[in-house]
């Protein structure tokens, strides 16, 4: 029964590291990184934007890998990872759209345009949302794990095709802007920091999902006795 009592001890570590990483990131990005010449301070948005965009993409691939692992092993452990990744990935994907939109408003003077890169990140967000909605329509258990696994595998096969199709339609999104070395370091640090935070949340959520399913099993046993 001691499964959940361990959870309290992890909390201060979680909070401290979260606050520390986020604050350091903000200070570094605001004061240490050089100001970009043409864009000015607006360019600083990139440090978060690229980091969450990278996480959204990474999460999608990781989710598909978990789905595949589930179908091969039929171990619900993988489905818990898949579910946790989906939630965090959805969060990062939403943040990608929000931060990107803020940047676009400052740089291009519009909140949204149908540029290829934007279309593909929107589609990514739609997949995450679709998977969450599909899951919410199904009961906990093997069936949900199976269907969601198939969906994310199809999704991950589709994303490159979306990117290709939209890119052939030509676009205005900066592909890889030239950066000073110091900017690169700040970006790298920001990516590592945010990845660490999200991984922490992911692991916590996965553990929680496991506890939830354990409690459900206990409840089932109690009902039967």
């Amino acid at each position, binding site marked *: 029964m001691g499964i959940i009592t361990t959870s309290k001890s992890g909390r201060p570590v979680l909070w401290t590291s979260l606050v520390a990483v986020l604050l350091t990131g903000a200070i570094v990005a605001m004061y240490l990184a050089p100001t970009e010449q043409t864009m000015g301070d607006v360019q600083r948005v990139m440090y978060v934007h690229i980091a969450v965009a990278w996480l959204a993409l990474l999460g999608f691939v990781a989710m598909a890998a978990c789905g595949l692992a589930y179908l091969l092993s039929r171990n619900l452990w993988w489905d818990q990872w898949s579910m946790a990744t989906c939630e965090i990935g959805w969060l990062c994907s939403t943040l990608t759209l929000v931060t990107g939109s803020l940047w676009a408003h400052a740089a291009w003077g519009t909140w949204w345009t149908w540029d290829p890169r934007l279309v593909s990140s929107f589609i990514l967000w739609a997949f995450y949302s679709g998977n969450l909605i599909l899951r919410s329509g199904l*009961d906990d*258990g*093997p069936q949900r794990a199976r269907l969601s696994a198939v969906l994310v595998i199809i999704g991950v096969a589709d994303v490159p095709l979306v990117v290709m199709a939209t890119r052939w339609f030509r676009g205005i999104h900066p592909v890889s802007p030239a950066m000073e070395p110091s900017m690169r370091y700040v970006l790298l640090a920001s990516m590592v920091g945010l990845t660490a935070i999200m991984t922490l949340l992911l692991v916590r959520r996965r553990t929680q999902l496991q506890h939830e399913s354990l409690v*459900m099993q206990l409840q*089932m046993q109690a*009902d*039967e006795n």
Partner: protein
Amino acid sequence: MTNQKSAIQAQRLSKRIGDRRVLREIDLEIAEGECVALTGSNGTGKTTLLRCLSAIARPTSGKVYWFGRPAAADPAQRRLIGMVSHESRLYAHLTLRENLVFAARLFSVADPGERAEQLLKQIGLVSLADRQVGQISRGMGQRLALARALIHDPPILLLDEPFSGLDRSSRDWLARLLHERREQGRTLCFSTHDEQQTGQIADRTLTLSGGFLTGHPVVADQSMEENRHRHAA
């Protein structure tokens, strides 16, 4: 490991549907040529057990064997099984004959048209052969569903509540038909809640309650031999 003489064998079969553990580690063995009745009150999982035994449903854990081979391994194995459920599994908008011919074709029966005709005669519905299934009565539909399950002459026949909803003459007809198949050495397993029927037809009665089987689910070799002799006599 698995007994060569057993037509169906289930090892530690469990099935969970949603939050319910419908079947709990069931061990079951049915010998070739045996006729087994499955009883239990409504909602105890007789249908689920039959669905697992026919490999329509995938067990949560445990294995099912048909004639010693894992049931789900190869789709071609499904020829060993015929099943009648309480749903007819017939296409309402195809005619009686079309339904049988379709099933015969997908089971690779040698002459589908001929086989369909033969079965229609056996169930006494030749005159309605070109009527759509949606337009015939439920009782007739049940007969046709049985014919559809027998289309490939399966060595194992599973029936889910075959007697429910039948009138007296149909019951007798069905009992005769089951008896006939047992005479031919086919394996039968049917679920029912009618105790009277079981005594007349079945060699063995198993009762399902609370997810467990009672009766004599696993037969020792000797008694299986006895059963076979009894059939032969």
